[in-house]
């Protein structure tokens, strides 16, 4: 109950932003002084941004118009890489596979994480349990992938041993075309659901309790309260979570790279895997850069659409 009283004393403190700061009447010179200090603090991050993001991005865009094998100099070939992409079956296959993965991954992950967050909020108040939910996220991606790869192995994996004890046919989780993407999606849902739940949980805690009290006074059923109060008030957090997880999900690579490497046939050749294959496997850095630029554009669009239509930057509490 401590959390409850605390929230009552300080309703919605984390959510309600301070009223937009009105322009101060401080002197111009004073503000110029602020600028200097601000620059000083921004500078280190700025170096990192310019060196590790801005310059590589610009160079990547440039390379996407070239033929470049990393050894030797890039040759300018105009939009040839982009026109080649249109007729590249593997590119379209990679897009389809990636979208399938994102759909499965985000769909299950969000629903499960929301459920876990509600449980954390209402039922599991112990810090231990809340912490335990986060554990899978603390294990490195590649290790998670390899652990599941072994556990789900067709011949020697423990999961298939159990399945076969039960008298059921073994399943080639990573080996069959039907199972590869759902399996990879499930592994990543397992790893990320605790972390996503934590983000949503933080959002739940920011919903002021008095709203719920009013709802219960009005005799609202728990289901009704969930759909009419929790979900709408959780929207900004959900949008943030979705934007971040969808972008992350589109970039799935490590799990695929250490398990199926894109196979069987092309069933799990997600776009990042294809980019990696083109660049580091086949030394076609120009084409790989073009693929990356397209992925960048797609992700920017997805994030924009999500922010725009889900109104992620405004809250119903204001």
């Amino acid at each position, binding site marked *: 109950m401590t959390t409850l009283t605390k929230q009552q004393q300080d309703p919605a403190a984390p959510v309600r932003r301070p009223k937009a700061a009105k322009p101060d009447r401080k002197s111009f010179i004073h503000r110029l002084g602020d600028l200097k200090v601000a*620059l000083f603090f921004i500078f280190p991050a700025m170096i990192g941004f310019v060196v590790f993001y801005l310059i590589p991005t610009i160079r990547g865009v440039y390379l996407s118009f070239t033929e470049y094998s990393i*050894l030797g100099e890039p040759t300018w070939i105009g939009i040839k890489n982009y026109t080649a992409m249109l007729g590249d079956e593997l590119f379209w296959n990679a897009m389809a596979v990636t979208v399938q993965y994102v759909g499965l991954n985000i769909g299950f992950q969000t629903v499960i994480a929301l459920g876990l967050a509600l449980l954390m909020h209402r039922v599991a108040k112990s810090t231990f349990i809340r912490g335990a939910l986060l554990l899978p996220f603390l294990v490195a991606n590649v290790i998670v992938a390899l652990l599941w790869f*072994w556990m789900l192995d*067709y011949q020697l994996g423990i999961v298939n041993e159990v399945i076969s004890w039960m008298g059921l046919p*073994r399943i080639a989780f*990573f080996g069959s075309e039907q199972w590869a993407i759902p399996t990879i999606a499930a592994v990543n849902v397992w790893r990320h659901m605790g972390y996503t739940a934590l983000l949503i949980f933080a959002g739940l805690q920011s919903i002021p309790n008095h709203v719920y009290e009013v709802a219960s006074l009005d005799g609202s059923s728990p289901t009704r309260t969930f759909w009419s109060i929790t979900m709408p008030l959780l929207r900004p957090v959900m949008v943030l979570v979705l934007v971040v997880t969808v972008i992350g999900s589109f970039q799935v690579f490590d799990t695929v790279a250490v398990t199926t490497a894109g196979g*069987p046939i092309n069933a799990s050749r997600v776009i990042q895997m294809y980019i990696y294959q083109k660049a580091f*496997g086949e030394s076609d850095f120009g084409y790989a850069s073009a693929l990356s630029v397209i992925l960048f554009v797609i992700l920017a669009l997805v994030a924009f659409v999500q922010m725009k239509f889900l109104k992620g930057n405004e809250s119903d509490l204001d």
Partner: protein
Amino acid sequence: MKKSIGAIAAAAAIAVSLSACGGSAPASTEAKGEINYWLWDANQLPAYQKCADDFTKANPDIKVKITQRGWDDYWTTLTNGFVAGTAPDVFTDHLAKYPEFASKKQLLSLDDAVKNDKLDLDIYNKGLADLWVAEDGKRYGLPKDWDTVAMFYNKKLVKDAGYTEEQLKNLDWNPQDGGSYEKAIAHLTVDKKGKRGDEAGFDKNNVAVYGLGLEDGSAGMGQTQWSFLTATTGWTHTDKNPWGKEFNYDDPKFQETIAWWTGLVEKGYMPKLETTVGTEIQDSFGAGKAAINTSGSWMIGQYTSYKGVETGIAPTPKGPNGKRASMFNGLADSIWAGTKNPAASVKWVEYLASAECQDVVASKGVVFPAITTSSEKAAEAFKAKGTDVSAFTTHVKEGTTFMFPIADKAAKVEGIMKPAMDAVVSGKKPASSLSEANEKVNALFK
């Protein structure tokens, strides 16, 4: 603030110019200093460390630092090293990789060394030295070892099936009915109820032991999977070797062989492709789940090390031409064009390619050195360990090897052939679908 930012910038500039100095140091013409050497096979590290120690004893001015990196990281790290200027002076090179390095001017030609130091290239097993002459006519490597392909079999399972090892060593094959090779594979396959693959009532969906193990979809080389079969039909990967410009995956002879091979899956004699993702083929063999595996000589150590499994080695079957066949692959040591120490590097490569070092490698019994006399010593070292490797050496003795297909754009060819072969092996597409893949492959060379 400006002052300190300026100071940082100045410091950075100094650092940059310092490292630039390091980068442009003139190449030393004297054979001394430290050489970096890379290899990927951990099993061979002790042998080469011994070579390096001996080398430094004879040439006290030159130190060799050996780095071993696993195959999966080896090539990307190496390529990145070429670009970043951190590549090793000397490294173990592969036939599938060196054509691109050579055409991108990353390798030092060894022609002068061969001429000036009067190296005798006839000491190596026939053909190995010529594999390293690139399309431009220059030599980019000196041979270090070679490998061929054979059948590893589980002695107990073979005996249980009533086969003698002698029979297994004298199998024949043809693409129509598979010959005695398929008969043996069928008979060695056992389902969960104990019925053999060639008996009535065999349940192909519940197989306990497969007659033949499956590694993967094999992609375009098929080195250990089918190349020893296709070669006996007269088929070759490319129009000419080395430096072929046209691949022959649309040849009916090839497709017939592949159809026969993948048909083993349908018959239940070989595991399905989807079951091979994960557990390595050799580990399934070690677990007693396959009676025969076809693999290369570099795997001898692995296959003979499983506890509780007695492994025998038989030569690959004779084909329609009445002969056996095996792909002949050879590794070499190459020098990076960006080395700061070319003289010392050449000296080290010459030492690696000499009988002194290759005899040391031979004595460890892990791989067959390129020099004819050294590989005979290696066979003896294997024998001393209790392994009869004649199944591998017979190809060299009887001249039934064919050269590893060397072509430009090998990575791109594999990029096309891997999914195409996967589709055929998994039974999703017929072998005739490889004609379409072949068109894509050949388009790379136009």
